[in-house]
């Protein structure tokens, strides 16, 4: 026990005296939490619209006014030719072209039917889909206005109408930040846990100081515990800083209990630290450790459901997420923070993470002995 205490003292000194590590621990969370939630907003607005108006009629002007007044679109180009509008798309000055054919007004009033053409830059499929859907619904509304202008609808509507009422639970304002911030907290915890542990141990290998420890009576488990405990404490510290920022900047307070979140975070950190340890047993130098942990982390994060929902992944990717500790925690923290889920709701995830912790640490320790033997 005494040995462990001395080792811990050494590790804490080493960490606290290294400005690089301190910067990683304190600046990373602040930057990520302050910038990422703002950037990661999929709500589509400011769509750049080019209008090719061949009609120049009262109606075409009304329609354009209605579109620009909606707030979703910015009219960047208004001309009388489609070719001109297309050049704007090529230069990335427009995302969407609305072409109003000649005699649009005449056809609508006289023939009861008029056509409009939309052309969307669909390189970003999601944006194209949403942008064109917004524009179509505005056109649809405008169509309704034109109709009421010409026909006096009888009180009893002759047209069958199914009204769709939608409501959004847990996040009625559709605030994307409440959704992103908890996920980013998980990201931070994972990076601190796995990267720093892996690099820290490998650094001792690279510089050769691990030899010095190996010739002392310090036992293997002392050494490993001495490495893990400081990062476990630091991880929880970073996590708490993150929560403080989430509260101060975004006003996010978990709907569920802090106890549930911290219990899960504590166990999760054990799993992640085990992963870091495992990486360090395979890597020979810091460069390798960085690359390996970066590589694994990238896969974990991308397949963790932070940016895109796991539900829409294909079957094989869904299977992979079952072996991804990050996806469990992202799932859990969102459930607890947004929906107030309790321990009973997350017991499956908790047990899985305990499993991960046992496997990673066990594997790492086994691998460690072999190398030193």
């Amino acid at each position, binding site marked *: 026990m005494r040995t462990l205490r001395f080792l811990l003292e050494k590790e804490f000194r080493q960490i606290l005296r290294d400005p*690089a590590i301190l910067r*990683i621990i304190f600046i990373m969370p602040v930057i990520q939490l302050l910038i*990422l939630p*703002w950037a*990661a*907003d*999929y*709500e*589509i607005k400011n769509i*750049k619209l080019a209008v090719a108006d061949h009609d120049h009629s009262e109606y075409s002007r009304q329609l354009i006014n209605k579109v620009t007044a909606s707030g979703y679109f910015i009219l960047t180009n208004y001309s009388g030719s489609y070719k001109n509008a297309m050049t704007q798309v090529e230069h*990335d000055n427009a995302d969407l072209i609305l072409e109003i054919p000649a005699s649009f007004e005449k056809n*609508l009033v006289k023939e*009861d*039917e*008029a*056509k409009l*053409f939309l052309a*969307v830059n669909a390189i*970003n*499929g999601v944006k*194209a889909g949403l942008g064109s*859907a917004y524009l*179509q619904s505005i*056109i649809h509304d405008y*169509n309704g206005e034109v*109709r009421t202008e010409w026909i006096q609808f009888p009180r009893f*509507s002759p047209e*069958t*109408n*199914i*009204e*769709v009422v*939608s*409501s*959004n*639970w*847990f996040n009625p304002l559709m605030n*994307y930040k*409440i959704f992103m911030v908890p996920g980013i907290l998980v990201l931070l915890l994972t990076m601190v846990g796995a990267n720093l542990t892996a690099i820290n141990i490998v650094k001792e290998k690279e510089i050769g100081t691990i030899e010095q420890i190996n010739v002392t009576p310090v036992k293997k488990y002392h050494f490993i515990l001495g490495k893990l405990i400081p990062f476990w404490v630091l991880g929880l510290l970073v996590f708490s800083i993150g929560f403080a920022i989430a509260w101060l900047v975004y006003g996010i307070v978990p709907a569920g209990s802090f106890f549930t979140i911290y219990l899960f975070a504590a166990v999760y950190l054990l799993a992640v630290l085990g992963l870091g340890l495992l990486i360090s047993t395979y890597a*020979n130098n*810091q*460069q390798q450790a960085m*690359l*390996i942990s*970066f*590589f694994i982390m*990238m896969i974990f994060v*991308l*397949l963790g459901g932070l940016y*895109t929902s796991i*539900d*829409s*992944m*294909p079957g094989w990717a869904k299977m992979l997420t079952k072996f991804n500790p990050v996806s469990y925690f992202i*799932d859990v923290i969102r*459930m607890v923070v*947004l*929906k*107030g*889920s309790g321990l009973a709701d997350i017991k499956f995830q908790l047990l899985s993470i305990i499993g991960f912790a046992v496997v990673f640490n066990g594997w790492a320790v086994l691998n460690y002995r072999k190398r030193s033997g």
Partner: protein
Amino acid sequence: MKQFFSFVKKEFYHIFRDKRTMFILLGMPIVQIIIFGFALTNEVKNSGIAVFDQSQDVASRSLIAEIDASSYFDVKKVLSSYKEIDKIFKEGKIKLAIVLPPHFNEDLLHFNKAQVQLIADASDPNVANTLTNYATAIIMDYQQRITNDRKLPYTIDTEMKMLYNPELKGAYNFVPGVMAMVLLLVCTMMTAITIVKEKELGTMEVMLVSPMKPLMVVIAKAVPYLMLSVINIGSILLLSVFVLGVPIKGSLTLLAFESILFTLVSLSLGLLISSASESQQTAMFISLVALFLPTVMLSGFMFPVENMPLPLRVVSNIVPAKWYYTIVKSVMLKGSGFLIIWKETLILAGMMFFFLALAIKNFKIRLA
């Protein structure tokens, strides 16, 4: 010149003899393309929904059957009370509940008007939005059908054309992004770290006392990473054309030229970082925070830049990857020529000279 090549050869040995690093450097783009290409989609497919049908009549059943039959939704749960919605949402598997009020058919027949309620779990606003949109579209189709496609007067038809990416494949958007990310990682981070490693281990001293010019020593370290990048660009392009089906519409020569330009920008950034840091951990930290995160967040390939608040939009202009991303999109997907992207090219070239000048200046000071 012979000296220079022997230095380059030494660097190649460094890389080739570290099998793990080699493997990751060359495997990274392949894994990224596969993940981005096949796993990350926002598509809705067979999403599980819950139904609370209070009328249980002909119309409500046929509407539910219609929704169930679409490729977007699968009815996974039939509920018998409002309270259950909260419970299934908390379990987290089902994200949309459809509630049909009592007398649905009667309302339709007698009043020509009925209501459907969609309740979405909006903890993920994106998913909630998309699911609600799709469900609404199906219900509208259903409504159209039961009105027997009666033609209404004064109808505006819209005809839509999806340019460049008619099937709305996600791959079109991220292939350019993955290229930028991989190049940045290989060139900037790896170059910076290898140079700093020599400093940290003290072998830099040994090389600096050789008859080679100090600047040449550093450039020799960058050459192998330039070659690795060219291989990576090649494998990314091959994968995206033959596996993902993303075409290269513009000129391949122009694309290659722009990619090498961006590689040079990344390399000069790597040199700059290496001249500013003393330990590998610092070098890694700077490359991650100052380069990697901004590239992922602000270059526009994960999140559209125009949605961001103004300060971030301004900052995004100093992220080199943003310009490269725009160039690749134009050349590869739109088939644009040099005339359309000369401005972006000029900006990248300017950045390269700026970083290189700064790196060389820092480098000289260190030797004095």
